[in-house]
């Protein structure tokens, strides 16, 4: 994928993260009632809407973070082969996604 498209995705995931994390904060910590009780968490965990919500939050967060890390590595060590950086971060991203997605999926 071209650098421009990767950058566009970085901006989109940045805006998405703002919305997702904002919603998560409001629902889990700022809304009235007891959103952090075991019952309310179990209720959200069994909802397909919240499963999709947290999987998307994970994808957006992972992409945004790993792309940012890629930029830092590329700028810090410009001579490092691009393939090494991309494959390392891509593999790490898939592994983290698999592990992190397992939690809400298993709780569903």
């Amino acid at each position, binding site marked *: 994928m071209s*650098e*421009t498209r990767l*950058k*566009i995705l970085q901006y989109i995931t940045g805006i998405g993260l703002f919305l997702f994390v904002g919603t998560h904060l409001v629902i889990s910590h700022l809304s009235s009632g007891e959103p952090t009780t075991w019952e309310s968490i179990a209720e959200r965990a069994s909802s397909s809407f919240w499963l999709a919500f947290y999987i998307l939050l994970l994808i957006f967060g992972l992409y945004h973070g790993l792309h940012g890390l890629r930029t830092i590595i*590329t*700028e*810090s060590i*410009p*001579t490092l082969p*691009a393939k090494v950086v991309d494959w390392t971060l891509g593999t790490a991203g898939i592994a983290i996604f698999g592990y992190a997605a397992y939690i809400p999926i298993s709780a569903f």
Partner: protein
Amino acid sequence: MQELTFKVQRYLPGKDKRPYIQEFTIPLRQGMTVLEGLIHIKENMDNTLSFRSSCRMGICGSCGMLINNFPMLACHTPVEELGTDRIEVRSLPNFPVIRDLVADLGPLFEKHKSIKPYIISLDVEEAEVLTAEFLQSGQELEGYVQFAYCVKCGLCMAACPTVATDALFLGPQTLGQAYRYCTDRRDAGVEERFHQADSRHGVWLCHLAGACSEACPKGVDPALAIQLLKRAMVADSLWLRRKKKPAPVAQPPTESKQKIAVPEFTVK
């Protein structure tokens, strides 16, 4: 008579391990520029001092140097404007040093060449053998003329913090010129230049520090050109870029004015 102290970088590869500073004290003349100070040193004090200069009027871009820690054209910098009688002159940073104040601008020209800084015409025959001019409106000219004032002095590249950390970064001069040609309606090389600017060391490495625009002696504003290039490339990636209509070839004039006659000699 008021005097000036010039602290000049000296370096002779093969002899010196690293650049060092040598001090010269010269008399101040009214309206003196830094370049004139260096010429005075070379002509009267040390003829081995090396620096590059040509036009002495801010047009050729040869005398780019780091003057009191800011990249400037030596011929375009009156010493009075510096507000001090101690002037430190070094070769341009982010470029290898050939000798004393002479920076090797080779990397700049290589990067500049890579974005094909010339009109790539769709009509190859017309481009090879020009029969007429390509028409262009004043408004179209306004869209890029500011960026066409670049004199390739390298000051923007010397000021750029990203070039300082990544020598492979195309840099403000190259990216600014890429935008200049991409906006020209006579040009059909947008895709090639976008491809080049879309590299890992291309347009997205620019963090908009703005140092290039501050340093540019010709008011080119490369930072603006880079932002406009980014916008055009995003539109292109999202299939939103409006294709330029190729500039039409002007019809040859049907009638021409008569030549003005040579005036009679007044002295016989």
